[in-house]
């Protein structure tokens, strides 16, 4: 039916009148009109309409970039702080360890000193005891000499007791001692 209509219309108008006809000139006209419209809109209309939106977008973009920068900076600061914290912790630990070792040394030294003093005291006590012993022995020997001389003088008269006699007895005691 459509073809019949088309044929009828062509017959009536005498020339092909159809919406399906493609007119080359119209293509050129479309390009021309659209091109001019495109350029005019681009120059005179869009900037005015879009300026606020574009500014807003630019602001948002800038804010985003700034936020990102701030974030990066904060991250760097945090990392630095953590590094510092770690360092100070290590430092504190080393100080503690040093203090501990110093106190250990100190204590060891004190113990050593005490021991030495103790030893010294002990040695002195020993020496004194020995000296006292020696003195007592000497005393005892002198007592013995005096007693023997007294006994001998009782036996052989009053003559004994002179220094020469004393020497004889002492020599004898010494010889006895050297035999021991």
């Amino acid at each position, binding site marked *: 039916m459509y073809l019949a209509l088309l044929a009828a*219309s062509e017959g*009536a108008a005498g020339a092909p009148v159809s919406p399906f006809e493609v007119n*080359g000139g119209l293509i050129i006209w479309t390009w021309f009109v*659209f091109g001019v*419209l495109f350029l005019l*809109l681009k120059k005179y*209309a*869009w900037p*005015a*309409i879009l300026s606020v939106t574009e500014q807003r977008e630019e602001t948002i973009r800038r804010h985003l970039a700034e936020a990102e920068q701030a974030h990066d900076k904060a991250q760097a600061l945090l990392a630095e702080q953590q590094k510092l914290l770690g360092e100070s912790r290590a430092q504190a630990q080393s100080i503690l360890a040093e203090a501990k070792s110093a106190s250990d040394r100190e204590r060891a030294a004190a113990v050593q000193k005490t021991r030495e003093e103790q030893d010294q005291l002990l040695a002195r006590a020993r020496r004194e005891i020995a000296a006292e012993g020696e003195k007592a022995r000497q005393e005892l020997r002198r007592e013995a000499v005096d007693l023997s001389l007294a006994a001998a003088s009782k036996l052989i008269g009053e003559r004994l007791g002179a220094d020469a006699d004393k020497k004889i007895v002492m020599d004898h005691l010494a010889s006895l001692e050297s035999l021991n």
Partner: protein
Amino acid sequence: MMLGQGPDIGEMVLHHTADAWTIDLEPITTIHLPRWADTHLGPLTMNLSPTKHVVYLIVAAVLVFLTMYLAGRSLRRQRAGENAPKGFAAAMEGMVLFVRNDIAIANIGENGAKFAPLIMALFFFVLYSNLLGLLPWGASPTGNLAVTGALAILVFLTVEIAGMFKLGPKGYMATIFPHVPGMHGPGAVAFSVFMAPIEILGKLVKPFALAVRLFGNMTAGHFVILSLFGIIFLFGDIKGWNWAIGGMTAALVVGVMMLELIVAFLQAYVFALLSAVFIGLMQHEH
């Protein structure tokens, strides 16, 4: 058949949808447009004399420009006074921003803002051209294959040339000679060459569909409206029924007109959207 005797509805429908060398403002007047001689461009012969559709193209372009220019001026004034945009200018700003953000940038991606002026101009130009056909004495230039074809060719050139710049010569050639992942050696080369015609066809089909879709939608709507009007002329002389037929037809035409109003917006949206999608596809081709 009734057509033979009564008014020739078919002729009337085609006459009103087809391009012409006259502008009918009946019953006031009929403007006869100037006829120029054919222009020869190499082997091509074309006639550049303005037709009805050329006139309406220019009317659409002027109206788009005036709308946007006045909206922009009004917005600028309102902002200078530190007022929130209002009224007509705010509505236009909303529409323009919708086309820019939700059609162009959403489908093209990070380069979207660069192509947005083209998509916006296409959308409003197509929309106004569509709407002109719904006015009394009006005609839709977008109901003409030459116009939709010219716009589709523009989109095609934009897609391909922008693709060449974006992808580089090697990347662009890969869109014609596709590299199949996992294929190597002569097999892959043979396959690429074999696929090339299909790829080229794919490139050409997209603008072709763009042109035919817009043309078809616009022309079909006019066919329907004019055919419905034809009912009045065919059956309006039936005694006792003429008022009923007139009223019913008018109601039907109003309904279809409403539909056409939606279609005018929808097809402008589809044209702009698909243009953006094709540009975006090419921009992100790997």
